[in-house]
């Protein structure tokens, strides 16, 4: 019986820039940063209160399993902002929105009431986008 997802990946265009975005802007915790050759490293981060889920910040590089045309197509799609990568949860969506905006994170959508609760949308440094929702999304989302 499968019980949990523990590691998943996000394709990024540049690992240095992705590190800065996920660790210094979003506040994720660095888990692994292991050099794997001259051009890439095994770089994983976790949401601050979810240490048992690692996100691999996976660079798109050419390999035997990942031929040049596939890598180029994927890079093009990431740059176009095609990929929605998931929902991130916060205690307070308005405080998180203000903090991330102050740190220069680009929002596609400010906190907006939807039928499923309040939601905002932002992009990472590569062009992947995430939904941001408060933990308590069906009650009063304001903490103060």
């Amino acid at each position, binding site marked *: 019986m499968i019980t949990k997802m523990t*590691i998943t990946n996000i394709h990024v265009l540049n690992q240095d820039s992705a590190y800065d975005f996920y660790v210094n802007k979003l506040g994720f915790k660095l888990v692994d940063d292991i050099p794997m050759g001259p051009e890439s490293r095994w770089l994983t981060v976790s949401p601050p209160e979810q240490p048992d889920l690692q996100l691999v910040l996976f660079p798109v590089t050419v390999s035997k399993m990942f031929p040049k045309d596939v890598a180029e197509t994927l890079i093009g799609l990431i740059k176009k902002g095609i990929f929605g990568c998931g929902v991130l949860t916060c205690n307070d969506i308005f405080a998180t929105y203000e903090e991330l905006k102050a740190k220069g994170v680009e929002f596609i959508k400010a906190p*907006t009431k939807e039928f499923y609760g309040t939601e905002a949308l932002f992009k990472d440094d590569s062009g992947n986008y995430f939904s941001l929702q408060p933990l308590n999304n069906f009650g009063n989302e304001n903490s*103060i």
Partner: protein
Amino acid sequence: MDQYPKVYLYRRIVQAKLFIDKNYAERIDLSYISDEACFSKFHFTRLFKAIYAKTPHQYLTWVRIEKAQQLLREDKSVSETCFLVGFDSLTSFSGLFKRNVGISPSSYQAQMQQLKLAIKKSPVSFVPSCFALQHGWLEE
């Protein structure tokens, strides 16, 4: 929705949080932060805790212990780490570290050093095969 309810309060509390993030290594007087944010200390603490589930003081300690773990992983000595993250006393630093992390700073550093040695010896054995294969690391 830039004009959500109490937007002005949120912005002041978020600025105070960012101030702690930036200045955790300094001697931070939380009364000064609440004055700067134009709140009474009591009101400031209440709003901060409502948003972050920690008092400003608890949050400052949390940030310092997080940074301390990073510095210990980078092989800074325990005493150097203690002062670099803003503690005055090694005893109180060690006590708070153990309470938050579960082990002493020196044990934490020893564990991290062992892990680093194991990673250096065989980096690819720390990468799940589905990723190593996709990246071609298993062929090298």
